[in-house]
């Protein structure tokens, strides 16, 4: 357990920093940002025999899944970033940058066992309205492994209207850094419990991608994509979110709330972290699960122009607050969750965690987070050291991967 009492000096430092942050934007004091325990576990393989008891124990350590999901509709946002036809070398996508299907299946199974009424697996896959079942087949997954993991499991592609009659509007309670509200697929409202199952990775634009950054993909590209309709959402998603979200050189469809301040910086390293926090404010995560059993170093996917490598940190962690979970995740990656812009992994971007903390979503201060299960130091996989070594040399030439 890593819960520490604060000294008066620490308290003063934190409250003064928080006061400064309050002047700069939508902010609560750091001390006021809520905390929540995070369960950490060693897990070396995706074999069900190992994974299932590990995840069951983690959920028990968080108070049990029954309290959270019994009789409820659960929506699970997974991470299927990039095209399913794009691998890091010959490695399966789930061993590098996709949430592993076994983790999804075990989570669904345990939720079903705990009494979930309905489980909906959500993702907005790249530039397509095709069913998720079809999308994952292209990644070589068997969707039935997930659909059969519990009763009433279904997929929905949330990159467009999908099964809904209209888009739902979710408002950012603190007003938002970039967007005051988002128009989303109905699935993000038609649920009692929202779960983010993410992959533990670095991220080119946002430094790291964990449970919060995973929610970047809840935005439908029919409204927030490069092919979005100008006035109304397009019927099908086309293109990515770069023009609307990363670069801000166009607004979402006029039917959706525009960004708050078109005069704000247009840099992706400013906008993406803020938009991620806004999305987490609008659609809070009830259960954050991050798996780093196998993953990759160097970025969020094989298209990143860095020295990339598949790695096996052998760790999985979960929490009831996305910010505290991601703070522990950063520590597990060898990074300081208190890091700010200019410090790894936020050398050139703002810290999503800091912004989230200042918005009052959760604390990133490890001294305020109870870590249960395997101690961080026993399962830390030093992404930070690999990053430092990698960045000491020039990146490799770009290959032709797809």
């Amino acid at each position, binding site marked *: 357990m890593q819960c520490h009492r604060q000294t008066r000096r620490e308290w003063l430092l934190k409250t003064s920093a928080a006061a400064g942050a309050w002047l700069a934007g939508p902010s609560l004091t750091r001390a006021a940002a809520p905390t929540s325990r995070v369960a950490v576990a060693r897990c070396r393989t995706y074999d069900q025999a190992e994974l299932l008891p590990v995840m069951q124990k983690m959920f028990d350590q968080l108070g049990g899944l029954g309290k959270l999901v019994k009789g409820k509709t659960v929506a699970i946002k997974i991470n299927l970033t990039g095209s399913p036809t794009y691998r890091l070398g010959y490695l399966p996508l789930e061993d590098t940058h996709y949430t592993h299907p076994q983790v999804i299946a075990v989570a669904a199974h345990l939720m079903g066992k705990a009494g979930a009424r309905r489980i909906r697996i959500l993702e907005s896959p790249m530039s397509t309205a095709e069913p998720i*079942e079809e999308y994952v087949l292209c990644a070589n997954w068997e969707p039935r492994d997930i659909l059969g993991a519990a009763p009433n499991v279904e997929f929905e592609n949330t990159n467009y209207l999908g099964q809904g009659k209209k888009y739902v509007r979710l408002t950012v309670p603190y007003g938002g850094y970039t967007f005051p509200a988002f128009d989303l697929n109905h699935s993000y409202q038609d649920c009692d419990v929202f779960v983010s199952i993410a992959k533990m990775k670095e991220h080119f634009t946002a430094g790291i991608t964990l449970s919060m950054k995973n929610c970047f993909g809840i935005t439908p590209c029919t409204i927030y994509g490069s092919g979005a309709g100008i006035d109304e959402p397009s019927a099908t998603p086309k293109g990515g979110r770069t023009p609307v979200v990363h670069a801000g050189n166009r607004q979402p469809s006029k039917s959706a709330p525009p960004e708050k301040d078109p005069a704000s910086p247009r840099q992706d390293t400013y906008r993406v972290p803020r938009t991620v926090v806004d999305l987490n404010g609008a659609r809070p995560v009830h259960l954050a699960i991050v798996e780093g059993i196998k993953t990759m170093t160097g970025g969020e996917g094989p298209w990143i122009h860095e020295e990339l490598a598949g790695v096996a940190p052998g760790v999985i962690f979960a929490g009831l607050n996305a910010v505290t979970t991601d703070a522990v995740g950063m520590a597990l990656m060898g990074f300081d969750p208190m890091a700010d812009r200019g410090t790894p992994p936020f050398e050139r971007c703002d810290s999503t965690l800091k912004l989230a903390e200042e918005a009052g979503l959760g604390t990133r201060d490890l001294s305020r987070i109870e870590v249960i299960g395997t101690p961080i130091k026993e399962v830390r996989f030093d992404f930070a050291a690999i990053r430092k070594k990698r960045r000491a040399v020039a990146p490799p030439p770009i290959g032709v991967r797809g």
Partner: protein
Amino acid sequence: MEAQWTPMRWPSAWKDPNAVNLLQGTGIDCLVIGAGDDLAPVRSRAREAGLHVADLAAPPAGVAVVKGEWPGVKTGRNEGQTQTGPTGVPWVDSNGWAIRLARAEQPEAQVWVDAPPAANAVIAADSYLIAMADSAAYGGRWIISLDNALAAAMDAQKPEAEKPWARVKETAAFFAAHQAWREYAPFAVLGVISDFSGANEFFSRELLNLLARAGQHCRVLLKREPCATDGLRALLYADAEPLTPALRKQILDFVEGGGLLITHQWPAPLERELPAPVDGFSMFAVGKGKIAISKEPPTDPYAWANDSVILVSHRYDLVRFWNGGAAASYYTVSPDRRRAVVHLLFYSYRGPDAATVRIVGRYRAVRVATVDSPQVAGVQMEARKDAVEIHLPQVSQYVALQLEA
């Protein structure tokens, strides 16, 4: 019986008959020579050298000529800028579908593709490889047509001509050495039924083109003939005309036996509606199979091609690529079904560096050939359930996977 020539268009600037000697020892055995009298000595010299001489205005017996596109990733008006389709995937021009249609219409004929480079084009050596392989993989032959700059450089014996000409020669020799592959039958999941003519010509032909681009392996089924549906999972009928009673019965037998029909019309009411995986179609159960009826008349072959892939399901993809880029494949099996050749075409400016290909079927061995290498080293094959996954090292833009059951 198919003529088995490898044709080359004689560059009009080559007036010296001795230039025929350049073709000695290559797989090129047929010259397409313009009609002018000034080329009469060339024609004579070619015949003396044992080459067949042809005229496109009156192709040789047994040859069907189709007008094609220059194959490859389409570039935009700005030099070197790649054009992309609505999904962001590079737009690829290929003549494979046209060859397959021509072979279905004239099974005894050899299909030549007439797609010369643009007048001012300067073609890279590997683009010649793609141009030739894009036809030969599908059992046709591209009429080798040198760009003007290369023809002039060869005429002047300039060193810059060596690399592209060597590429042309080795590619011609490769396919000339594998004539037997043309006897292999295409493996498909979808049969496209049409007369491919008249009012249906644009839609049906473009559909074949776009299905290939979407990676769906299809069989061309001519409406005038009984449909060979063996091994297929689905049929697609989008012609304007209603189904004839005979064709309707054939299709109904196929559907009731467990197949899928994708169409915009069905002459009888359908009652047992099922959820459809795409918005543009309604799905109905019929016997052991299903009929997917489009909600709108067929006007957009792009939408139909992409919907077809989902209606049939990626579960039944015969070939899947990873890291293949702008790739296409043509899966053929030997008459005894003990061997298969899967032709892989990578249309980017160079071949992939770490591609993986999943091939449906139970195979125990694979030999990977390119025009540079009869047996590529460093290939790994992994057995999967009812499939194999083949990891390729850096390869050129055309690869032949020779699989043994």
